[in-house]
């Protein structure tokens, strides 16, 4: 072989020239701006992760315990999990959301797959639908208006077109129930509807049990498919079973469904990516088919899921003591958020007597609250008050604490009254 070609040549530049620069996520930008802001009283209400009263990430005490146990267990290795995940984990996770007495489980009709947290479950569920669901016409999914920002991208990514359904009524800052039912009725039979199991993201507005039943009636009538996203079980009301009510009710009523489950928030395991997809089928035979196909889909994307987080959750779910402790830790988080709601409400209505109705702050559920502020007001909150929040009026209650709630209330009041110009350098 001639050594001539061993002479290095300059790097060619024609490969990636056309790759466009994609702007970063809004929330990401918000957090980045917050981080570099030198303002002493700045508050981050954009964060989608729980913070304690000192605005610090909170590793649950039960998670610390479980972590120590794993660390000291010399029998543990880092071997591959089965493709569908750690069996002790997926079994317990299914019982947690579906209920240990669920007919879906006892009849062998539920297929559970460990996923890369909630996003992974949503993606796998969507992918599964895109390959095997008998769509009535082109593949579409109905998403609440508004919904979690990533839902649109997740479905589009697998070739399912997102369509909005009426959900949030900005006039009442509540559920547009008539609009919702209307959308269900007008959709073609067998359409797929994405439903937030509890603690709707981003509005915090959930249907009541009665409303869920009315929704269920239409779903059954039109043979619609319920794609549940459950990222906040236990975290919404503080009660595991209460938060799972809608999902279990629909299973009992025989609605064809799947549920995406995340332990990111309720176990504070965000970065360990612990989630699951549970698909409920009509019979065991179909469930076995579905299981084999989900296995194929999982294998070609991630091979098998990550072990550490699943082991932690498995320990917690399967050990009665740890499970009780976990429920207490969840109540701590949910409780603090409910306290912040009460505080903020009280400050706005009794101390500042801010114009407008603020009941929604008390009534909305979960980590987020749709304040009702418009785009301009939100911008003012960010730019004048250095209170970082989403442009749609969403605030993360987890970002509120005893040190910041007064300042937030005061700023909200000023912005609502249009007095933001007063705020600048006097603070």
């Amino acid at each position: 072989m001639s050594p001539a070609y061993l002479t290095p040549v300059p790097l060619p530049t024609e490969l990636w020239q056309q790759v466009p620069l994609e702007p970063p996520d809004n929330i990401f930008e918000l957090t980045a701006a917050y981080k570099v802001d030198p303002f002493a009283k700045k508050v981050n209400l954009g964060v989608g992760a729980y913070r304690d009263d000192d605005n610090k990430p909170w590793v649950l005490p039960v998670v610390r315990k479980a972590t120590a146990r794993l660390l000291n267990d010399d029998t543990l290795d880092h071997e591959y999990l089965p493709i569908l995940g750690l069996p002790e984990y997926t079994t317990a996770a299914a019982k947690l959301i579906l209920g240990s007495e669920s007919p879906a489980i006892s009849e062998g009709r539920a297929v559970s797959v460990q996923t890369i947290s909630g996003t992974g479950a949503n993606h796998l569920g969507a992918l599964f639908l895109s390959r095997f669901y008998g769509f009535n016409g082109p593949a579409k999914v109905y998403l609440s208006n508004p919904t979690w920002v990533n839902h649109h991208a997740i479905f589009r990514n697998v070739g399912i077109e997102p369509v909005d359904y009426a959900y949030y009524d900005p006039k009442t800052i509540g559920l547009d129930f008539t609009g919702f039912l209307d959308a269900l009725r007008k959709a073609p039979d067998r359409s797929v509807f994405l439903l937030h199991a509890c603690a709707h993201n981003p509005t915090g507005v959930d249907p009541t049990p009665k409303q869920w039943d009315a929704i269920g009636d239409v779903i059954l009538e039109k043979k619609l498919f319920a794609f549940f996203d459950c990222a906040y079980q236990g975290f919404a009301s503080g009660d595991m079973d209460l938060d799972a009510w809608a999902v279990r009710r629909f299973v009992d009523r025989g609605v064809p469904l799947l549920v995406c489950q995340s332990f990111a928030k309720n176990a504070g395991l965000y970065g360990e990516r612990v989630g699951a997809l549970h698909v409920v089928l009509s019979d065991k035979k179909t469930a076995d088919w579905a299981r084999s196909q989900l296995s194929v889909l999982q294998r070609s994307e991630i091979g098998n899921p990550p072990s550490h987080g699943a082991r932690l959750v498995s320990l917690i779910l399967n050990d009665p003591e740890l499970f009780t402790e976990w429920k207490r830790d969840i109540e701590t988080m949910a409780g603090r958020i409910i306290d912040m709601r009460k505080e903020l409400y009280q400050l706005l209505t009794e101390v500042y007597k801010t114009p407008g109705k603020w009941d929604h702050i008390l009534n909305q559920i979960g980590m987020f609250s749709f304040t009702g502020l418009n785009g301009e007001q939100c911008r003012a909150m960010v730019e004048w008050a250095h209170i970082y929040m989403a442009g749609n009026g969403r605030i993360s209650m987890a970002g509120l604490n005893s040190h910041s709630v007064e300042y937030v209330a005061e700023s909200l009041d000023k912005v609502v009254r249009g007095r933001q110009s007063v705020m600048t350098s006097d603070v």
Partner: protein
Amino acid sequence: MLAAIARRRVATGITAKTLRSVSTWGAVPQGPPDPILGITEAFKADKDPRKINLGVGAYRDEHGKPYVLQTVKKAEEAVASQGVDKEYLPITGLAEFTARAALLAYGAESEPLTKGAVAITQSISGTGALRIGGEFLARHYPHSKVIYVPTPTWGNHIPLFRDSGLEVRHYRYFDKQNVALDFEGLKSDLLSAPEGAIVLLHACAHNPTGIDPTPEQWEALSHIVKEKKLFPFFDMAYQGFASGDIARDAFALRHFVAQGHQVALAQSFAKNMGLYGERTGAFSVTTADPEEKARVDSQLKIIIRPMYSNPPSHGARIASAILGDQALYTQWESEVKGMADRIISMREKIYNILTHDLKTPGEWGHIKTQIGMFSYTGLNPEQTQALAQKAHVYMTKDGRISMAGLNAGNVEYFAASVDAVVRGTL
């Protein structure tokens, strides 16, 4: 609409035979069983005390047990004592991990690395890296949607790249006759590939054959790839684990980059750090400059976010701790060498027993010259089936064995079984 679904199914290897449009899931056909899993199941059910599982693609120590590296244990304890939180990692993962992973693969002197032109993301181990890479190339590689993979290759490459949106074609690789590299066939197939096609190259320790090109052969391949303007996509799942030497195992990758090729790389820490289930890996692309790197980076995020948002932190923190600490790194290097050495010694042992002790018919040199976890024994499907049923020795149908499953306690029995099946006396 149904025709479109059927087309998609055919493209992904699923027949439309069982389309039943009435029930919600009427169209769901049974998925094919995983061949490797089948072996493990048969092995588990086997009650014979002499049974050996050579299907498993994970390292085993000299007692046949999974091996947790000392450095991994130390790093895990260090990470735990640091009291890190559980917050989300960025979409592209733990920055210190990916920086160190890039350094490990490309080497400190690598020009794209020193220029800050390597776009890299943490991935769900090697599989995830390949999948992100496949998707990225399908969307943004301007010259082709075709990827060439060797025959044979890791089974999962094919569905993975197809699902990414690439057309999979093959280049000759394994010479069955001589149980060696079909270098002429390889060169010929690459030379007749369409200009600009993507070519998947196993950086070291080819899976499943264990047959790697020599450095001279790699140099010749670099020339051909350049001539045909092919795009090299390296799959490096065994760096350090193949020869026992980190730099040596990265030779092909580093040579191509030094020769001016722009490449993509899928990296796995499953084997070389024994982090299998923690899913620790990285996907990278070498670009022209930091500006281009930023654009590529932004597109990798677009791919990842709707699939799983951000990667798991545990394994990345362990790997990063090892790569970032001089003492841990040195200890790790010796542990990896230890694993590689044990496998090399098993290869020598088998060769010696077959060739000198038992004088088994046939040529067995390939067992010694092959490299890495796997070895293509040259046994045919009838022989491998007989070995499973009569000798309780389990391997994949193609005669592939995982060397890691062999140890001082079973290697003699294994060799004797192979000898018997070759002679037809099993």
